[in-house]
């Protein structure tokens, strides 16, 4: 089977299918969820039944419904973070690469210092002072993540800036905006798109992790990481309750990674290790 002219592998097809499923569920949750977001339909940690496919959560709500709303929330937040991070990162990265000079030195040093603090620690510091509202979460993690996007964009930009066609554009007298958007960006898309997928996974896991620690998305909003936290005690009784939302998280990230891996392998050249001896 082919997609965009390239052959799909089995794992990539699986990944795409799962990602598609999650997208559909997240978009249409209010219409397709079996119950409303906070409806109590059973007892604490009820076993899975016909009424509730994955059983009930720690206060008797339908696990499946909560997972659907949780996916919607977590995916939405992660997407917002990644988009914002990319806008910031690409702009600063490419401007740094093309302009060079003080601008470049300023941003690079700033990013170097920011990257000297592990992102979780940095996020914890900010959240500890400002609190965990959703806008704060999105902005904080986006700014932190943009440092990595900055590095990638800058590296791509530096490679492309030395291309003679960029020099030709500058010799013409083209402005900065033209050079970035018409000469450099069209040639930098491919690695940026796959990076988007990877960063999305990372941010998705990051948000889930923060929520798991109780510092991310706060109740009453449903969120997959928070659900793992809320249902964690069930493990001690041998019940699988926290596993369901955790599996949902894992499933989505694995699928996105499979798709990204496939995209990266399209361009890959056979390495020297495969020479015929």
């Amino acid at each position: 089977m082919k997609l965009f002219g390239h052959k799909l592998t089995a794992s990539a097809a699986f990944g795409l299918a799962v990602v598609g499923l999650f997208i559909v569920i997240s978009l249409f949750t209010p219409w397709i969820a079996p119950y409303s977001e906070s409806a109590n339909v059973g007892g604490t940690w009820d076993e899975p039944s016909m009424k509730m496919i994955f059983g009930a959560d720690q206060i008797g709500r339908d696990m499946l419904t909560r997972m659907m709303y949780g996916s919607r929330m977590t995916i939405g937040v992660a997407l917002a973070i990644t988009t914002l991070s990319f806008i910031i990162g690409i702009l600063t990265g490419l401007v740094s690469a093309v302009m060079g000079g003080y601008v470049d030195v300023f941003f690079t040093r700033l990013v170097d210092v920011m990257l000297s603090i592990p992102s979780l620690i940095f996020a914890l510091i900010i959240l500890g002072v400002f609190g965990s509202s959703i806008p704060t979460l999105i902005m904080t993690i986006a700014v932190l993540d943009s440092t990595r996007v900055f590095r990638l964009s800058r590296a791509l930009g530096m490679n492309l800036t030395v291309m003679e066609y960029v020099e030709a554009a500058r010799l013409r007298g083209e402005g900065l905006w033209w050079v970035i958007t018409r000469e450099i960006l069209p040639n930098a898309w491919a690695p940026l798109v796959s990076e988007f997928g990877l960063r999305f996974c990372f941010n998705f896991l990051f948000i889930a992790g923060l929520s798991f620690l109780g510092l991310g998305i706060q109740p009453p909003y449903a969120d997959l990481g928070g659900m793992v936290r809320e249902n964690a005690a069930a493990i001690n009784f041998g019940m699988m309750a926290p596993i369901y939302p955790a599996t949902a998280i894992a499933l989505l990230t694995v699928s996105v990674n499979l798709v990204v891996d496939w995209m990266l392998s399209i361009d890959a050249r056979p390495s020297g290790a495969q020479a015929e001896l």
Partner: protein
Amino acid sequence: MLAGALVMRAQFFSYRSHLMAKLIVNRLLLGILTLFAVSVLIFVCTQILPGDVASAVLGQGATPEALVVFRRELGLDVPAHLRYWNWLVGALHGDLGVALTNKRVIIDDLLPRLRNTLFLAGYAALIAIPLSVGLGVLSAINEGKWSDRLANVLTLIAISLPEFFIAYLLIIFFAVNVHWFPSLAMVSGSMGFSERVFQTTLPALTLTLLVAAHMLRMTRSSVLSVMSTPYIEMAFLKGAPRRRVIVRHALPNAAAPIITVIALNMAYLVVGVVVIEAVFVYPGLGQYMVDGVSKRDVPVIQACGLTFATVFVLLNTLADILVILVNPRLRHQR
């Protein structure tokens, strides 16, 4: 005459390693500078950025009296740069202040927890590094074969899983089902070494799985890119057997990128430690920080942030210095 010989030797030595010594010293200085910059950044984020720290932390509903008390306790009436200086000087002397919430001296709580975290991270690193670098090299050598493809899929799955997921899986298998290991890692200062190892095995294993997958993938791609160089092809064309090419020709040149990979993953380790400590209720620095964050205890947050960042910067500096040391162009000067 002996003095003369020593002087000559010193001169010769300094000429030979002149560039390398300069680079190493530069890198050390950069590391120290980074530490300062990081401390400034942390301070700015916690005390300057929020504007009025008191209302940011205590929220909208705080009474004016509570705000005043808070400000006094945090010493916010002193100008910012003095506060920073006091804090920094204190930190360098081992005084990290007093916690807001329980009035305990921070350094007394922080040090033992730091020890625990380092123990856990070290335990995991000890297993993960040799395992993943070795498997990564093997995977690169067998590129394209089924063993490599299997490793690729498995590691891809592993890096996609959230830390708590892996932790819970391991708990279910090893603690709940077969009772080999405890599901909560209870360590205390008085514990013997082997007891400590036993208690921390599950969390260390979780960390290992997390980090080893990343390291394996990165090692593999580093070795692969070395394998694609023309001098490797030349070695094959001289009739060297595969093993010799890999050991004598590829690995010496892959050392630098692999060291960088390991350093990068120590960062993952630091991050992963926090979540793992939460799952296993392990009394480490991560737990301490998370507690501080949920209680909005600014001095604790600052202290923990500074400690984590320091460890991180030290690791990176060490890695960069090692990379300089193994660079053949620098070891043999013109």
